[in-house]
């Protein structure tokens, strides 16, 4: 077997290559922002800045619409390292994410947004149901939940920046600040990160966020493939079964099986949780506003079809190799003090004997940093579009000029950048919990309404509003119950299922029942969005509420 490396021996730090790669990522992101600005200038401001003139190609759509945030990429390896092979089951529904992500709603969202001229997700709800209240509620929910998500990512970005500093000695890329005190380096990291990401997003809008997201997605796959080639042969030089058997020897038999190697008393993946995560990734992702708006921005049908295939192969290259890498990591480094450090430690240790090893490890480590920047950028655009398009222009200044909208968009982005910084000067400890609340609540609020919007002629505004409110509320309620109750009590009441499953079920039931109990929607409005139209007819579905 490959001799395990004591944690202390592996405690090397990022060199100048790591820092150089982060600076390159920043430079490329700013450059992409300026290129995006040129593309935006080619069309009208609103559609260009918030929707990229509906010109997303297959690569941009595939690698940015459903790929998870920086936080997920940073947290996933630590889960594998901690709990073992069962994490492959936890993430397994990514096998169908490409098809559920694009084939369930993509075609209809793209079509309806073109027919109505909708630029944002609330725009789409407003136009489809002919009721401003639906759009307003969608806006408020999106802004509320996405602000929490965005703020949390600022903290992650600042910590990555801090840890990349040569000689720092700390390697964890986690958002957890345990062992990574909030000090001057953190504030410098926060300042650099915030200025960069707000700056390029402000310059290039939606396209800047998409292009930087695409850039980090490519970095990520390069990093994973390189790490696989560096680490796995070392761990399995005496047989492909050795990494697992060595990891089992270092932990226990549970590491090779479900429900996983436990931390404390809590089982990682009992049956109910395993079922729930097929809903979380494959169905919850459909309801992400950031994903929905990117589908609305796709160029054409062919783009969507190609995206399904591209994303299928991308997911295969990312997730299963990462599982194997981290199992090998447990065999090679059985006692890493902070589980989040496994990827940086493996990267730096395995590349140490190569020419330019620091640069190679820097390339691998730059990917999560890019992912965090792209995530913040995405949320900034969605929040700004919600405030500017769906509230400012719709309710306050319907006749606002392009110039005024541009100024207000910039002010909103700067304002939310300031909020992101202010909230992280003294970052609170329960942000991770808020992230989970926000992600699953958004999914619970929007999956059913989105399906009703796209496919159900009888769906009403009241049904949609009820589905949003009850879906989000149920998810938050069950999440609070899970935090408040002990594990067995929660499992007894919830049948072991995650809150999002109950949120989705409550949302679907409420949406259907309330729609059937309320007056049918206007026939001409439904017909304009569901029926074949004369070639010369232009459809716009105005609100009447």
């Amino acid at each position, binding site marked *: 077997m490959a001799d395990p490396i004591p944690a202390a021996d592996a405690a090397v730090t990022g060199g100048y290559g790591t820092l150089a790669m982060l600076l390159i990522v920043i430079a490329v992101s700013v450059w992409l922002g300026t290129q995006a600005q040129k593309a935006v200038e080619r069309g*009208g401001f609103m*559609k260009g800045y918030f929707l990229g003139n*509906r010109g997303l190609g297959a690569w941009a759509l595939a690698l940015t619409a459903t790929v998870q945030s920086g936080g997920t990429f940073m947290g996933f390896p630590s889960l594998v390292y901690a709990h073992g*092979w069962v994490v*492959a*089951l936890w993430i*397994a*529904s990514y*096998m*169908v994410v490409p*098809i*559920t992500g694009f*084939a*369930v709603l993509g*075609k*209809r969202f793209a*079509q309806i947004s*073109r*027919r109505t*001229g*909708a630029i944002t997700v609330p725009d789409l709800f407003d136009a489809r149901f*002919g009721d*401003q209240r639906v759009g307003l509620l969608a806006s408020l929910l999106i802004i509320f939940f996405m602000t929490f998500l965005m703020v949390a990512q600022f903290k992650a970005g600042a910590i990555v920046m801090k840890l990349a500093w040569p000689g720092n000695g700390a390697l964890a890329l986690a958002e957890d600040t345990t062992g990574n005190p909030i000090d001057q380096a953190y504030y410098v990291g926060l300042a650099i990160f915030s200025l960069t990401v707000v700056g390029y997003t402000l310059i290039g809008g939606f396209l800047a966020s998409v292009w930087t997201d695409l850039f980090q997605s490519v970095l990520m796959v390069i990093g994973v493939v390189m790490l696989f080639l560096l680490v*796995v042969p070392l761990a399995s030089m005496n047989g*492909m*079964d050795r*990494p*697992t*058997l060595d990891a089992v020897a270092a932990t226990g*038999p549970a590491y*090779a*099986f*479900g*429900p996983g190697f436990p931390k404390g008393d809590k089982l990682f993946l009992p049956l109910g949780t*395993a*079922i729930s995560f*097929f809903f979380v990734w*494959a169905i919850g992702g459909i309801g992400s506003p950031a994903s929905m708006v990117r589908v609305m921005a796709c160029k*054409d*049908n*062919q783009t969507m*079809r*190609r995206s*399904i295939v591209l994303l*299928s192969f991308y997911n*295969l290259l990312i997730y*299963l190799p990462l599982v*194997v890498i981290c199992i*090998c990591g447990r065999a090679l480094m059985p006692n890493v003090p902070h589980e989040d450090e496994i990827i940086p430690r493996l990267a730096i240790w395995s590349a140490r004997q190569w020419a330019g090893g620091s640069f190679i490890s820097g390339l691998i480590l730059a990917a999560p940093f890019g992912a965090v920047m792209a995530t913040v950028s995405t949320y900034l655009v969605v929040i700004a579009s919600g405030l500017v398009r769906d509230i400012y*222009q*719709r309710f306050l200044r319907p006749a606002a000029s392009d110039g005024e909208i541009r100024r207000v968009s910039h002010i909103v982005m700067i304002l939310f950048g300031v909020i992101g910084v202010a909230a992280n000067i003294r970052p609170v400890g329960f942000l991770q919990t808020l992230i989970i609340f926000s992600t699953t609540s958004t999914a619970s609020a929007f999956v059913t309404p989105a399906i009703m919007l*796209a*496919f159900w002629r009888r769906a009403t505004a009241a049904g949609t509003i009820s589905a949003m409110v009850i879906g989000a509320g149920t998810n938050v309620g069950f999440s609070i119950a899970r935090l408040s109750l002990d594990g067995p009590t929660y499992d007894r009441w919830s049948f072991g299922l995650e809150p999002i499953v109950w949120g989705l079920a409550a949302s679907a039931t409420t949406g259907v029942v309330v729609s059937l109990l309320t007056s049918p929607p206007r026939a001409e409005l439904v*017909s304009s969005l*569901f*029926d*074949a139209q004369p070639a010369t007819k*232009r459809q716009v*579905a*105005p609100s009447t509420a």
Partner: protein
Amino acid sequence: MSPPPEDVVVKAARREACMALAMWVIAMFYTITYCYLHGYNRSVESLTFVLWFPDWVFWGIVVPWLTCIVLSTVFAFRVMGDESLGEDIDESAGDSGVSHG
């Protein structure tokens, strides 16, 4: 006067959405059932490997994952239609298309 026929995009999208959701249900049922029956509460002594993967991971996750890629590719290039998504309404109409009550 008879109502206009349903848009071809609506019909195609509904059919494709049903197929996608069916694929999700089948993948979930197979993967969870197989992994629960073969990957939970076992002894290490009974474990065999395919490549780096424990047998239950390979047959319960890797194989269906590869199958889904093949099916997704077939779906994208053979099943999914290429109907026109329609023209975007004019930019001027788009901006004024914001409903103002």
